[in-house]
């Protein structure tokens, strides 16, 4: 077992200006937002340029980093003092963060380019690009910060960008609601992350990754470490749509499709995985927390898959799939150094193939007048070949078709899990089978079978600005997995940042292990089932009433219903009661006191009845009282 390398404070070279990665898109966002309508004409080009600029910086940093000795590959440097005595803002460039940076800027740039075409008819395209740039900046801040506060700022920054982009078509109430829901559910996770950060601070007196080495965290009790781990996991669950905070992701599909591709598939939702891997120093010494991470991962990968099986909305189907795939990553991240490389590897390949498919779905929608119901698709293969082919490549990658990207990374996770805990492993295999089913279902319903188009639909291939990104992404979907996993290339690359397991796993071009074969078999079975039900058979244009299980899946496993019953309704009641209590109780007391004095006054003044004789009486009584009192006091 090899621990991560020490973080070196060094601010030279290209890495020294790596903050440009964040600054460029941020600047882009600022210019586009503040510039207003004047920038409408060229705004989208600026957005793309800024994103590409960040990509260039990322690539250069990556090149510089790989040129260093492995134990020198974790570089941090301070930018400015943020909260004196607590936090200095700084960059951390290490294999883990640069991997993310490459993914974010790379895929991000492609999606920027794609969006030029996709959003060309939207009058607010400039604003869209501003938000995209803002997202890229925040996401980079999240992964490049050298401390938890910077991470948290980025964390919430992507949340904001996500909120803005989900609600981009805010005039649609559903979009506005979805945006709000995403933000609020994420806040629940953020709450956990926040408390986790507090605990780290009070326990260790620092929030910088450089200080929080395993030697340092080892000094704390396991209970504390478990607590930290679970709190961070809560944060991760929110951002990565893991159970029990998964409900927002499906609604988030209200946003424009490039947003779904970039934020809710490729990058932002994987931030939770990043957090868990980055916080390895805590998790690795808290087995309970790790176990919970794996359980959450498995539960979500199954839940997402089940949801994906029943969705007719192509984007929601993909969203369920995203949930499921992140579940895999989470599972991998919970397995310690042995799983990190596969988790991050899967994250990267997923970034490619899922973005590929989302953009493909966007291309389909673009062609079908924004229709999202797959029951209204069918037989699209001939009319949009590029989209279909790239989509199918992504599909093959995700179901783990041998030799394609997903095959290696997913297999890696399943194998590692199997070694770790057989039950988890077999459940993960089951998930892979489900993936085979629902993804095949999607392909058959969309591209094959009979036309079920709306009357006014005239599908056509999308413009080059949209198809080229698809092509590039599909290339990644094909080859990236093999490149990363074979020979443990990625594991070795990441090792300075996350450490290495005791023994490196063996990697094969094609695995013959029982798990690998079982996975393949189940996937094939799933695909076959899908073929029988959706390829060969007629697909009804209106969803038939399904069995209980179908309804269960269609309704997102009753997640929303549960939220509504457990949180929203009691919350509404609580709010009503609190408002009532405030008006009648607290304020009522104040006003009641005033009214009481007023009432007393009103009654007492009647005593002043205008008769001089009663005044005299009061004087007499008063005199008697005074005499009595004085005699009493005097004789005491």
């Amino acid at each position, binding site marked *: 077992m090899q621990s991560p390398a020490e973080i070196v404070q060094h601010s030279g070279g290209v890495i020294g200006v790596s903050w440009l990665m964040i600054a460029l898109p941020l600047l882009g966002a600022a210019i586009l937002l503040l510039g*207003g309508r004047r920038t409408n004409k060229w705004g989208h080009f600026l957005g793309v340029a800024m994103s590409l600029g960040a990509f260039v910086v990322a690539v250069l940093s990556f090149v510089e980093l790989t040129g260093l000795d492995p134990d020198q590959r974790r570089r941090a440097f301070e930018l400015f003092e943020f909260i004196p005595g607590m936090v200095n803002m700084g960059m951390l460039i290490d294999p883990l963060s640069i991997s993310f940076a490459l993914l974010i800027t790379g895929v991000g740039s492609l999606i920027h380019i794609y969006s030029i075409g996709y959003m060309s008819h939207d009058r607010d395209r400039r604003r869209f690009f501003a938000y995209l740039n803002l997202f890229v900046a925040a996401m980079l801040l999240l992964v490049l910060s050298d401390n938890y506060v910077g991470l948290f700022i980025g*964390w919430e920054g992507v949340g904001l960008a996500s909120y803005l982009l989900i609600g981009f078509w805010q*005039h649609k109430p559903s979009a506005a609601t979805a945006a709000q829901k995403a933000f609020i559910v994420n806040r629940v996770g953020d709450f956990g992350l926040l408390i986790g950060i507090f605990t780290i*601070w009070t326990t260790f007196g620092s929030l910088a990754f450089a200080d929080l080495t395993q030697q340092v965290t080892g000094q704390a009790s396991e209970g504390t470490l478990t607590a930290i781990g679970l709190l961070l996991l809560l944060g991760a669950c929110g951002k990565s749509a893991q159970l029990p905070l998964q409900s927002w992701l499906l609604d988030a599909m209200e946003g424009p499709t490039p947003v779904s591709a970039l934020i809710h598939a490729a990058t932002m939702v994987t931030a939770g995985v990043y957090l868990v891997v980055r916080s390895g120093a805590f998790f690795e010494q808290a087995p309970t927390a790790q176990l919970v991470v794996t359980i959450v991962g498995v539960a979500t990968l199954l839940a997402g898959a089940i949801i994906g099986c029943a969705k007719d909305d192509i984007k929601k189907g993909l969203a369920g799939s995203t949930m499921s795939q992140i579940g895999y990553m989470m599972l991998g991240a919970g397995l310690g150094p042995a799983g990190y490389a596969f988790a991050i590897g899967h994250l990267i390949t997923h970034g490619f193939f899922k973005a590929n498919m989302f953009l493909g779905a966007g291309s389909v929608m673009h062609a079908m007048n924004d229709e999202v119901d797959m029951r209204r698709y069918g037989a699209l293969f001939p009319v949009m070949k590029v989209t279909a082919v790239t989509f199918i490549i992504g599909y093959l990658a995700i179901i783990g078709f041998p030799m394609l990207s997903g095959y290696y990374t997913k297999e890696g996770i399943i194998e590692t899990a199997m070694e770790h805990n057989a039950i988890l492993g077999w459940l993960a295999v089951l998930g892979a089978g489900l993936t085979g089913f629902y993804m095949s279902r999607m392909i058959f319903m969309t591209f094959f079978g009979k036309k079920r188009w709306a009357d006014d639909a005239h599908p056509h291939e999308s413009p080059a600005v949209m198809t080229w990104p698809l092509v590039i992404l599909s290339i990644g979907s094909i080859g990236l997995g093999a490149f990363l996993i074979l020979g443990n290339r990625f594991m070795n690359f990441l090792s300075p940042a996350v450490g290495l397991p005791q023994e490196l796993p063996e990697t094969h071009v094609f695995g013959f292990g029982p798990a690998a074969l079982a996975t393949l078999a189940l996937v094939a079975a799933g695909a076959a089932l899908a073929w029988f039900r959706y390829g060969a058979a007629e697909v009804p244009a209106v969803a038939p009433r399904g069995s209980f299980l179908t309804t269960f899946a269609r309704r997102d496993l009753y997640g929303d219903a549960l939220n509504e019953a457990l949180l929203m309704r009691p919350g509404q009641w609580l*709010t009503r009661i609190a*408002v009532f209590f405030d008006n009648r109780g607290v304020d009522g007391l104040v006003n009641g006191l005033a009214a009481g004095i007023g009432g007393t006054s009103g009654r007492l003044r009647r005593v002043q009845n205008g008769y001089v004789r009663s005044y005299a009486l009061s004087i007499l009584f008063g005199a008697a009282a005074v005499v009595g009192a004085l005699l009493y006091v005097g004789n005491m």
Partner: protein
Amino acid sequence: MPWLSILIAVPVLGAVGVALLPKGSDKLAKQLALVVSLVVLGLTVAMAVQFSPNGNRFQFEEKYSWIPSFGVHYGVAVDGIALVLIALSAILVPIVILASWHDAEGRPDATGLAPKRSAKTYFALLLVLEAMMIGVFAATDIFLFYVFFEAMLIPMYFMIGSYGGVQRSYAAVKFLLYSLFGGLLMLVAVIALYVVAEKNTFMFPELIGAIQDPTTQKWLFAGFFIAFAIKAPLWPFHTWLPDAAAQAPAGAAVLLVGVLDKVGTYGMLRFCLELFPEASKFFTPLVIVLSVVGIIYGAIVAIGQTDMKRLIAYTSISHFGFIALGVFAMTQNAQSGATLYMVNHGFSTGALFLVAGFLIYRRGSAQIADYGGVQSVAPLLAGAFLIAGLSGLSLPGLAPFVSEFMVLIGTYERYAVPAIIGATGVILAAIYILWMYKRTMNGPTAEPVKGFTDLNGREKWVVAPLIALIVAFGFFPKPLLDVINPAVDKTLTNAQVTDKQPVSTVAEKKGAGQ
């Protein structure tokens, strides 16, 4: 140069000047008021630059005997805490003046009739208020502090009562009486402090440590604290605030919630802790409970509001819970955070109230249900509202985050459970802000909203500086913290508290590493 006296005198003279303008010169009055407030701002900046954070605790000291018979001095000086709050006042006033350009005139469509109101008086009152706000933070004589503390109620009372909404007189009277009641209790404590201390002076620095007897401390603490708790306001003394803030014109509401209420939390930090350290420790559990209840309660009730200004007022009650929590957590981080919170909350709630005011000016209603889809017709307005709102929910990258983070982390160092419960306010904040935003700004554009114009030039000038400050201090709070930290350090020393140390520290390593 007697900076602080000048800062107090200039707005007073300005107010007199504005008030003496002939009838009908409303426009001139506004301009004059704006110029005066800008001059004050300039002077404040000039003073702030000369402040040396690591110098004496109190700087720019002035001390003259005022009423020798009572041992009262005209004593003014600032430490870091007071300085930032004075700066907050000086920044907000010109913005408020600009924002209130038409507020004093009364709109014809408000209640069917356009009441004739004197704009001149409004701006004169604003300037008087500014002088008192500066004075109350600058006072180092407790009696002088009390004088400003009470006297500043009067201009605000008239601003609410004369220029407010339909229920303005109820709100104004409630505001005045509630605050006055607290103030009078404090008066008893002030008198008792003087009598018991037997120092024949009200000068704050000389009275530190003067009261040793724990029982006496407790009583005096209670006297001061209730006044501050009403002013701040802490739960359950808060019910005047929603009424006052909802009825006050937006500009006055900004100063009320943004600055006036800070006097309460400032008083706790400055006077309660340092004068009565033992009692403060004794009452800490109670105050922390009140604060935490306030955080959650304010947020929940805010969610249930139907009136924008009331909603914002309730969010402030929640935020004041955070500030009080930070003050009484008695750690460096929490108290610095609380002080920073006072400033940031001024900007953030200020922006929120002002933008809400712009909305209300356009629609003539503060009811959330009367809006919908504003973003489609007035994107800038909506954007400003969103940023202000996001700062209200302490979004990282905006100023209030830093302070909320510091308060919570500082509280967590000593009182983990309250900090955790308080942190749930983070979630609730997202609900109340975003839900209000959604209901007003998103969705299909409501019929009466369709004619909305976007922000005009003046309104942009109102919003821009606030947003710029919110963003700037969100990423770079250091200038403020550098000023605040040494002052908080002194406060903690005088309150006889030391910071808790982490379980296993990496401090040595950090020192070597950086």
